[in-house]
């Protein structure tokens, strides 16, 4: 599996897009830090961007890599290699290269700015951690969808739809539900609903860390009561791990049942 990971990784490092993605983060972070004024402001701005962009790019990379490497996959399938290792290797290759782009693109400027001497280090770490989670989660979902759809247009469309759902539509439905049922106590609903959306969950984790949940209004305060605790934090991280494990398990499930 590690050999396949290695080949997928090096294959991707030849891709221009990976560098563009990393460079975008780098320039953005540099300008936010040096021109925008201050660490905590930069972290909040970056959060808003990473929460949308990391899932989107992971989705596109996951789908495209799967379809573009089908020849490689076919060659591998005839070799004495476990099927699940082939696909996990490729998936991890995608996820790791995205993770490294993110780490370098966002991390380097912060290190140069002197994050290690700042109290913001934990907020920053949470931001990076969440960004990494989102990259792993959405590239797994994308890989799963691509595996299930031979037709690349359909696979691509579905994967983007899933991203759109979690990044945009979900929040809309959530707000709609909140305003429709504003007479009822909705705390547990709010908490429950955020668990089912990795992007929301990530946002909450960072906001809690930043201690500005007042920005999220009443439900925000309730959520803070639950998730602000160490237990809540651990639960949320656990759910994010589940969000990686479930699609990864789905990849395996489809891969061992598919004809090539």
């Amino acid at each position, binding site marked *: 599996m590690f*050999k*396949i990971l290695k*080949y997928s990784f090096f294959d991707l490092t030849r891709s221009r897009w990976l560098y563009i993605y990393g460079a975008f983060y780098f320039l953005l972070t540099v300008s936010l830090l040096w021109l925008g004024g201050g660490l905590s402001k930069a972290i909040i701005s970056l959060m808003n961007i990473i929460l949308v962009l990391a899932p989107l790019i992971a989705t596109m990379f996951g789908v495209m890599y799967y379809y573009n490497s089908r*020849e490689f996959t*076919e060659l591998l*399938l*005839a070799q004495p290699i476990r099927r699940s290792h082939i696909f996990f290797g490729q998936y991890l290759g995608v996820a790791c290269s995205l993770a490294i782009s993110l780490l370098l693109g966002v991390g380097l400027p912060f290190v140069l700015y002197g994050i290690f001497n700042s109290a913001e280090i934990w907020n920053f770490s949470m931001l990076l951690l969440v960004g990494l989670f989102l990259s792993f989660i959405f590239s797994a979902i994308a890989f799963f969808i691509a595996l299930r759809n031979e037709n690349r247009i359909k696979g691509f469309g579905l994967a983007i739809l899933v991203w759109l759902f979690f990044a945009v539509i979900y929040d809309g439905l959530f707000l709609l539900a909140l305003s429709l049922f504003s007479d009822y106590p909705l705390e547990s609903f709010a908490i429950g609903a955020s668990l089912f959306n990795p992007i929301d969950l990530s946002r909450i984790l960072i906001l809690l860390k930043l201690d500005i949940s007042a920005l999220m209004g009443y439900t925000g305060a309730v959520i803070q009561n639950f998730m602000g605790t160490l237990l809540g934090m651990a639960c949320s991280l656990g759910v994010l791990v589940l969000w990686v494990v479930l699609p990864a398990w789905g990849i395996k499930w489809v891969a061992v*049942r598919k*004809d090539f």
Partner: protein
Amino acid sequence: MITIEKLQKSFGKLEVLKGISLEFQRPGITAILGPNGSGKTTLIKSILGMALPDKGRICFQGEDIKGGWAYRRQIDYLPQIARFPENLAVKELLRMIQDLRGGQPDAERLIRLFALEGYLDKRLGTLSGGTRQKVNLVLSLMYDSPLLILDEPTSGLDPLAMLHLKELLRQEKERGKYILITTHIMSFVEEVADEVVFLLEGHIHFQGSLRELKEKYAASSLERAIASILQEGKLAFSSNGHGEKAAKLVLGG
């Protein structure tokens, strides 16, 4: 070496293999024949575990291959359509497969044989069809596995490369290997094959030696024998379903 029991495989509604039982227990060259779309590639991919049977069992050296992967170490496979990562150079691809598979392959000899030295640094996407096929052959023949499965090895080869291929097959056979080949070139079959398996409409219509095949159909050449099988198959097919009337018409019954 291989035992196939009542293998069934459909793609959606299309039943490709309808219960095939086969055994390959003697070394030598077996040609798997049949018209386009008769399921030859599907059968081969099932043996490799790339296509997964709906029903039935495939045993390799006595063990069910279901869910297995290590047995593929004993198989060299030439796919019908040579699909390679287009951006890799020939050399890189060879190195990659060697790295992934391990062992001690002998690519040099084959590269020389097929005169590929000048192409090693070329990207696979830029190669001509026949050259791709030669690379395909090098990749699949460079290991020394006991079972060789070649899906249309002749396609796109020039006469010289074809000669080399026949010579290679003869050598491998003499070394006691099991070799499965599909092809549509009957003269090639007549020259190299020991056994023939004929697939039609999802069933095996004949398995035996070339001589037996010709004798059974009282045919002077392989082509004629196959024409007879096809005719027989058409009748069998039409009499087990909707084609009954049509068959009667044709037969004048």
